[in-house]
């Protein structure tokens, strides 16, 4: 272990001496700083007068000396820990105090010219030094008597905590403090009346026909969506794993389609089907002689759109869990003379609880943070996410109101999170134990089977209709008005000038940027999300609950708030990222990480701890155990995390709008611009192209990740043959 610490410290020292401490104008990958003789590395910068960088270098040196000089391991570890933490604190402090325009506070203390000149954002040198100190600290912590003993675990926790602190808490605090802002200062007493105002929590819809406050509206919608998506997701998952339904492949495609759709497209398709002049509304109005109404606009419209959009997430979480329920338990139940309904109700269903709870939580939070659907279909039904958006970008910008609404939204999320924890309780849900397990999963009893068919299949048909309409819409001149066939939209978006070989279509730029950024973000998201899940399920450490909730935070906050807070936090040193592609990748990783976390937790709760213990007993360390035992059993969760983060990086709108720049424009911001401009054909053609791209990517991912083999075969009991 001493060796590992020393290696990290050496890396830190080398980067302090050789790499540019600050950000270079040419970007991270451009190596011109090496040759043009302006290498402002940490060391040179100190010599040039930026003395405040010295503690970072000194801390590394001191830690190396401690490592080499002290023999007693616990004492060595403690001293190194202290030194490394002090070094990290100094790096953070100097970055926060001395910005581009000079020192932010203590102006009187700093008088030298170099301080007044300020400094640009941190660069590669600072980043690697901080990382080296962080690992030196965490490894030492694991060796001092307070630690857990496993350097890999402690280091991972340390890294994730640091990342969440920098990329979730640090920006979000920038906007949340606005909630306490009053004219000329901050006030805590002002906050409560504003927070508990009837605009947010009014309950009059229960007793009269007026609508409730936005908070209540959002809560009601989120509960309904969470319950609805979980139920639909469960139906689909049961059909896949417990029935001999024939067209499973087709169904599988239909279940993933909605998440790969830019949100407004579903809204538009629903309007064309169910709006006042929609095909289906008109058909029934003519048939039954009713007046065509605007029933779609309001709660029902948003609810349908959200069910359509978020059912796949519930499905992705549940399919792995439903597959994982061990046949032995079900067989044991049947041996004890339970019928198939009793087996399902009292054995299988309780074992699926982690999946159900996590699917509900995701649906709930997605619904709260959803922005596109309420915007298109909301009409008079106000929800928090759209109100927050317009409090920031509306005709009257009111960041304080936005912050208060955001806190209301976080309160709802926190409540749902606690409720979910209470419901799951402290029971064990492990069913994958590594013991011989050659049984067959019980098939569903007929009533349940038909109940599943009756909920899931109409839904699948509905999805199919909506998507056929979208594809149809991209090939007609003006969807809904002029249905003459045309290729024009595709040619405009994706035209290629063959004579010159140039990509002349208007969509190519943003298309390639989007694909590049999402391909980089997806594996990172899955990595961060699943490591977090591993820590939460498998490791015990102090502050675990708070840690778990903090990883959900970025997901629960509406994209608009995240977008604006990222600009506020990362437009200035110490970390200056606006206008780069890195900020887009980071925002995707930390916004979508919770899905990896939830899916990972659900899947990992089923893996019996004896598997890890067996591996550890045989001499493997935690890292090897994760890689060789846990990861292969996590196939569906890995796939869900990869798929979801890839797709969300392509389809997310609200966070991205503030962060895109001319060099790095994203597909959704392009599409929204076109829709705003009334160019539906082009927007839909682009969306259709994106849908096809994502579908191809998902199929490819499925091939790459492969199928997890839990048992010799995942057979379902063949009732028809035995009866």
């Amino acid at each position, binding site marked *: 272990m001493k060796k590992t610490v020393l290696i990290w410290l050496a890396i830190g020292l080398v980067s302090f001496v050789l790499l540019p401490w600050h950000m270079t104008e040419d970007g991270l990958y451009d190596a011109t700083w090496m040759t043009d*003789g302006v290498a402002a590395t940490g060391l040179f910068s100190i010599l040039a007068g930026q003395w405040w960088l010295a503690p970072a270098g000194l801390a590394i040196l001191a830690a190396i000396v401690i490592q080499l000089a002290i023999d007693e391991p616990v004492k060595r570890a403690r001293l190194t820990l202290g030194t490394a933490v002090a070094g990290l604190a100094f790096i953070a402090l100097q970055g926060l105090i001395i910005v581009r325009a000079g020192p932010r506070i203590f102006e009187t203390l700093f008088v030298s010219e170099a301080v007044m000149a300020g400094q640009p954002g941190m660069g590669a040198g600072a980043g690697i030094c901080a990382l080296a100190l962080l690992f030196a600290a965490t490894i030492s912590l694991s060796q001092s008597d307070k630690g857990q003993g496993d350097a890999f675990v402690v280091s991972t926790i340390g890294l994730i905590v640091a990342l969440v602190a920098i990329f979730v808490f640090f920006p979000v605090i920038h906007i949340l403090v606005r909630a306490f802002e009053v004219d000329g200062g901050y006030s805590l007493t002002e906050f409560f009346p504003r927070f508990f105002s009837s605009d947010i929590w009014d309950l009059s819809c229960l007793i009269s026909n007026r609508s409730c406050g936005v908070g209540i509206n959002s809560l009601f919608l989120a509960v309904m969506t969470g319950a609805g998506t979980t139920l639909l997701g469960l139906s689909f998952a049961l059909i896949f794993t417990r029935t001999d339904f024939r067209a499973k492949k087709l169904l599988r495609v239909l279940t993933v389609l909605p998440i790969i759709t830019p949100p407004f497209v579903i809204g538009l398709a629903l309007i064309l089907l169910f709006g006042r002049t929609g095909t289906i509304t008109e058909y029934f109005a003519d048939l039954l002689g009713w007046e065509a109404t605007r029933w779609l606009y*309001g709660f029902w419209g948003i609810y349908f759109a959200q069910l359509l959009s978020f059912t796949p997430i519930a499905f992705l979480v549940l399919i792995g869990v439903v597959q994982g329920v061990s046949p032995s338990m079900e067989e044991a139940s049947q041996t004890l003379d339970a019928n198939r309904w009793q087996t399902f109700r009292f054995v299988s269903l309780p074992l699926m609880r982690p999946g159900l709870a996590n699917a509900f939580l995701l649906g709930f939070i997605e619904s709260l943070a959803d922005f596109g659907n309420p915007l298109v279909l909301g009409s008079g039904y106000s929800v928090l996410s759209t109100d927050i958006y317009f409090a920031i970008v509306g005709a*009257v910008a009111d960041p304080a109101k936005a912050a208060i609404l955001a806190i209301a939204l976080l309160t709802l999320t926190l409540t749902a999170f606690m409720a979910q924890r209470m419901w799951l309780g402290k029971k064990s849900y492990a069913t994958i134990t590594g013991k011989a397990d050659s049984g067959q999963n019980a098939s569903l009893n007929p009533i349940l089977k038909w109940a599943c068919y009756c909920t899931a299949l109409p839904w699948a048909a509905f999805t199919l209709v909506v998507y056929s309409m979208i594809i149809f819409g991209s090939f007609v001149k003006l969807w809904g008005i002029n249905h003459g066939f045309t290729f024009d939209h595709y040619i405009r978006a994706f035209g290629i000038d063959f004579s010159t070989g140039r990509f002349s279509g208007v969509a190519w730029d943003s298309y390639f940027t989007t694909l590049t950024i999402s391909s980089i973000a997806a594996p990172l998201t899955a990595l961060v999300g699943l490591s977090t899940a591993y820590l939460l399920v498998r490791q015990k450490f102090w502050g675990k609950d708070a840690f778990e909730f903090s990883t959900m935070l970025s997901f629960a906050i509406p994209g608009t708030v995240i977008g604006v807070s990222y600009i506020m936090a990362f437009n200035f040193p110490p970390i200056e990222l606006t206008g780069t592609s890195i900020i887009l990748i980071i925002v995707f990783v930390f916004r979508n990480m919770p899905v990896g976390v939830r899916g990972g937790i659900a899947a990992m709760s089923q893996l019996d701890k004896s598997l890890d213990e067996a591996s550890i007993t045989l001499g493997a360390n935690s890292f090897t155990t994760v890689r060789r035992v846990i990861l292969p059993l996590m196939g569906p969760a890995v796939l869900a995390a990869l798929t979801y983060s890839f797709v969300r990086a392509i389809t997310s709108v609200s966070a991205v709008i503030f962060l895109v720049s001319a060099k790095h424009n994203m597909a959704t911001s392009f599409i929204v611009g076109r829709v705003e401009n009334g160019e539906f054909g082009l927007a839909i053609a682009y969306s259709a192209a994106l849908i096809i791209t994502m579908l191809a990517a998902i199929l490819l991912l499925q091939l790459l990740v492969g199928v997890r083999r839990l048992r010799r075969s995942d057979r379902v009991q063949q009732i028809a043959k035995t009866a």
Partner: protein
Amino acid sequence: MKKLGMVSVAALLASGAVAWADELSLVCSAEQDWCDLMVAAFEAENPDTDVLMVRKSTGETLAQVRAEAGNPKIDVWWGGTGDPHLIAAEEGLSQASGVDTSELLGWAQNMAEISRGKTVGIYAGALGIGYNADILAEKGIEPPQCWADLEDSRFEGEIQVANPNSSGTAYTELATFVQLFGEDEAMTKLAAVGKNVNSYTKSGSAPSKAAARGETGVSIGFMHDMVKLASQGFPLKIVAPCEGTGYEVGAVSIIDGARNLVGAKKWVEFALSAEVQSRAPEVGSFQVPSNSNAQVAPESPDLASIKLIDYDFATYGSSETRERLLARWDSEVGDPNPQQ
């Protein structure tokens, strides 16, 4: 050694400045096609400058400019309704361009005067009423001619308009009513129209899109947006209200602290020139250009034939008036908790 370090820091800053000189960072808040046309034309005139353009709505741009204040990544902000440009000028987020405005029409010069040169008018678009001809014919509703017609019960549940709290378009409508009828009368009239409104949308352009598809019968919005929808084939008809109407002025501003100030000034001069303003109709943008020598497209709503009010941007753009009017609108017209 110390000297070398100092030199290296200076050189780093200098190299940064050079890297920015030939790049102009532009946020465009007009329609995408128009943005593309402008960029292509500007780059053709200034082959050394690479325009980095991204399209964002005015509200989003203002939010971004505010958040980036002190270290802006944007040089120049072109297009989009004038109010946010004026707010940016008022908050010191933009800087005077010092360009010559003598060729411009009165309302565009007015914009520059109010903001002390920080923002200049580039086009004007009048507010109007749009209606779906098919829907009104089917329901046997006589089309509207005046603002007052919208109070008539024949339009019950057929009118859609945006909420002025979130939409600049709807705020222009509110301010227009106040300037036409006086503040108290305006609130009464808006409340009467409100009885027929089926939905106050968040976005200003949503009502006209809904009317184009027949989701609502009548919409209030900017005429050039309606012209664009109608030219795509939607059965949308446009009415210039008989009492007269207000208008928006699209504007261009240079952001305070712009890294490429020279390029930004060049862009403003270019955007105000008659040649490039005459080209807007090529991409289906039918706003009225601000340069008096620019050609007006035949499809453009002819401002001469529309009774335009003398819109007072200074008064109605100020945050004080805005807050007062919106508070009155909330209590007397809009219903924060509508019936369902």
